[in-house]
């Protein structure tokens, strides 16, 4: 199965890549890593929990997106991911 890629690398956005993985794995690359890593990680974990998604690798390439942008991108990615896998 191909990976799901959502979002962009434009400023104030993020590129979210979802691929199958034996356990949950979250990779965050961010220009505001030092200040917001925890917050981004928390936002991703919460959303994955809500959608009951555990065997997935989330790669978040963040260009300074606001929290609701990150959530929106991830939610779209999750829904698409589930769609192609069902």
């Amino acid at each position, binding site marked *: 199965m191909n*990976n*799901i890629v959502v*979002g*962009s690398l*434009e400023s104030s956005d993020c*590129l979210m890549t979802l691929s199958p993985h034996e356990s949950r794995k979250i990779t965050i690359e961010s220009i505001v890593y030092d200040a917001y890593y925890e917050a981004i990680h928390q936002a991703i974990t919460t959303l994955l929990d809500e959608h009951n998604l555990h065997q997935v690798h989330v*790669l978040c390439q963040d260009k300074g997106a606001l929290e609701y942008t990150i959530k929106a991108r991830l939610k779209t990615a999750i829904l698409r991911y589930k769609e192609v896998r069902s």
Partner: protein
Amino acid sequence: MLFHDIVLDEEKQQVKAFLNKFKLHYEEDIDQTIVIKDNQTLIATASTSHNIIKCIAIEPQYQGQNLLATLMTEMIKRLAKRGINHYFVYTKDDQAHLFKALGLKKIVQTIDVALLEGGDNIEEKLHQLKTDYHLSNKPKAAIVVNANPMTKGHYHLIETVASKHADVLVFVVSEERSVFPFESRFKIVKNACQSLTNVTVLPTLDYLVSYATFPKYFMKNETKIREEHALIDVLVFKEYYMKILNIQDRYVGEEPLSPMTEMYNQTMKKYLNHRFHIIPRKTLDNIPISASTVRKLLKKNGLEAVKPYVTETTYQWLKTEEGTKTIARIKDHDQRH
């Protein structure tokens, strides 16, 4: 943002002319090209060749609008649709920061070229490889072979190294640029080495690449390009493979037949010093055995002619259905590999 796919020859000419303004050349191995236009004028372009994003240029008066992010996002999404999630960019060192800002990571750099990757991470991949193949932390010796196809020469090289070192890694080039598919090359080498208990056969991953994939478009002359390619390859091997897998010695077979590979070996010698060893090539009736000779023989005289040169595992594989198809392909084509 509207992207135009470049398909027609006429359009390609436009892209070529556009790239020429930046002293870049449109490379032959490109498999897709996109452009961005402002009205009818071409203002930006990017291409891919398998997992390499290349030939990227943006009209100066449109620079500073972050069109690079737009191009890269589009290319990353297109590659993902093809199942490619790990991509590379070669660039001049003074431009590397632009790609780093987009989340790519620098693997190595020389004075002229920087190699960056995205979507994956070399250190993580090699640690994974170490776990997958249950490699110890003990010092090891390593050989890299393409084995296209495996010959008695390859076996001689592996056997010689295995008699000198307690732990030997044999890397088979993962890249699919050879007539013999990776899966078969790997299986043949693995089966041939079964009796050598201190030898582990493993893939090179995407990092050690052939000259064919190395971008040539921003360097001037052929010799320089060859040198840079060898240097990048050697640096990747030294900085990551040797460190992470604790490889202490690198062995290669002597190259009496190919001046290019000989040059490559010289570069390696320069950077690895006493850790680099050349093993004389095995000969048959005073003729050095090489995979290219085997391919030539297969083309001209067919399967039985190569029997004295190849390992039993290769010979048996050549007799399979897939092997027969591969021989037919060699006979059809005039390509070097």
